[in-house]
């Protein structure tokens, strides 16, 4: 399957998935996904529960490797390198591609140590104080925590914790950030702050965001991919990519009927 994307100018791609099939054991969970993710843009994955959007997201930093029985066919090319080449070290992949999770998950360490953790394990030689400040500033959290860097990261509010997790991801200096429903555990005001942050971050990073919230996708994303799920004859569920285009096209003039029905709230 290929998509004719209605773009005006050619863009540089960061990830290029090519006929990716994901299996859990013998069950096919995602069938034949091909998608190009563009540099310095925000790409949203939307779709009903179980459509495999989170699964696909975790393929981009090989976090699915942790699941027993996980098996991937096809190619995901990242800067001309197939991420699933047997020669590739998944630890190195994850150092370059940061991740923010659904539930804020700071380490039970101080705010400072949370941000410094990734840099320390990567053998960062520069000024750690400076890196911590820069990362917290980029995550729009510095002013709120600059006087209590030694306090536990778990003492922060949910929204602050999520921005701390973003600061922690930025401190490793990745070039792409994957976000798995980063606002689903946050209140509306915290959500707004994280969305503003995503807007600022795309100047330097390429971002993929999985979201259940269609308004969020339309607010933050440049590109949107709609996934759907269909039952298989063996009783399982299989996700597939329905349509991928610029966000305004997906939300205003989608080419597929399923997309039209989903974005207008008729199912999902």
């Amino acid at each position: 399957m290929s998509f004719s994307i209605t773009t005006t100018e050619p863009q540089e791609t960061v990830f290029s998935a090519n006929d990716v099939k994901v299996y859990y054991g013998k069950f096919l969970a995602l069938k034949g996904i091909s998608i190009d993710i563009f540099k310095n843009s925000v790409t949203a994955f939307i779709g009903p529960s179980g459509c495999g959007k989170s699964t696909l997201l975790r393929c981009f930093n090989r976090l699915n490797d942790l699941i027993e029985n996980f098996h991937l066919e096809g190619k995901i090319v990242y800067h001309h390198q197939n991420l699933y080449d047997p020669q590739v070290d998944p630890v190195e992949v994850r150092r370059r591609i940061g991740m923010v999770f659904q539930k804020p998950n700071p380490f039970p360490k101080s705010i400072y140590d949370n941000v410094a953790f990734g840099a320390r394990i990567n053998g960062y030689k520069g000024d750690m104080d400076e890196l911590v400040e820069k990362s917290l500033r980029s995550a729009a959290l510095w002013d709120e925590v600059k006087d209590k860097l030694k306090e536990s990261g778990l003492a922060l509010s949910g929204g602050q914790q999520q921005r701390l997790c973003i600061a922690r991801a930025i401190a490793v200096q990745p070039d792409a950030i994957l976000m798995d429903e980063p606002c689903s555990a946050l209140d509306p005001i915290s959500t707004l702050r994280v969305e503003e942050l995503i807007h600022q971050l795309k100047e330097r990073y390429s971002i993929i965001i999985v979201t259940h919230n269609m308004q969020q996708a339309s607010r933050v994303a440049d590109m949107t991919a709609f996934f759907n799920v269909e039952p298989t004859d063996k009783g399982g569920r299989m996700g597939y990519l329905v349509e991928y285009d610029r966000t305004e096209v997906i939300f205003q003039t989608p080419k597929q009927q399923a997309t039209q029905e989903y974005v207008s709230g008729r199912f999902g």
Partner: protein
Amino acid sequence: MNTPAPNPAKIIRPPSQWDKSLDRGFIWLTRFFALAIAGILLWIAVQVTIQAAPAIQSSGLGFIFESTWDPVKDQYGVLPQIYGTMVSALIALILAVPIGVGTALLLSENFLPLPIRTVMVFLVELLAAIPSVVYGLWGIFVLIPILKEVGGWLHSQLGWIPFFNTPLAGPGMLPAGVVLAIMILPIITAISRDSLISLPPELRQASLGLGATRWETIFQVLIPAAISGIVGAVMLALGRAMGETMAVTMLIGNANNINISILAPANTIASLLASQFAEASGLQISSLMYAALILFLLTLLVNVLAELIVQKVKRI
């Protein structure tokens, strides 16, 4: 709407006299049980102190610093037993903490297939079910003959180190310490494993997602996050090692003197009580009670210390 509105008066139903007395009865019952436990502890402490009173009067604090235990001359001091209690427990901890925490890690990570791990968890728990007299017998017939070889080698090769400056004749501090280590292993393993597997899986994913290796994740994220549970396990094990009686009596040699060599016979407070109580009379009984009181205070101290350490490491 066709259905009539429910009568609001029906939701008002004051509790009957029976309900009230049942509630009050339950409150008092639980209060009684809770206080009874504290009462028993207090009662034991008071009784031991009363029985120890003659010895406290005749020996005073010197009891703790005196090294002779001579029922014939009625001279009593428990310094060697305090030393033996601490050192045997320390040997047990040095051996059991790395093995116990290592086992807990193996059983909480997915290094082995789940069925094998389940069997291993069961086997470790079974270690705790072996009666301590069986450990003592095993120590005498199996462990001591093996340790004689090891001890002989340590003495001949490393005899210049004070800890090995006597040969291992049979029972001694080392066999007692090794058996104590095996006995406290299930406590350390089970509690450490519980605190490791109860960590949220997001923590592991966060660490790996930042490009940490599994090694870095285990040692820099998982163990620090579970440290309060692990420290608690170690302290609980220390309390157990200090109070263990039967197996130690059978293996330590019951020598009431201080010897820096861990291959020499020694004694612990619990073992002193077990070995002497049956034939004691007069001031000797009172002195044994005094020793029991000291053991009581020592374990109390360890538990308070444990609580403090757990509180301190929990704060971050």
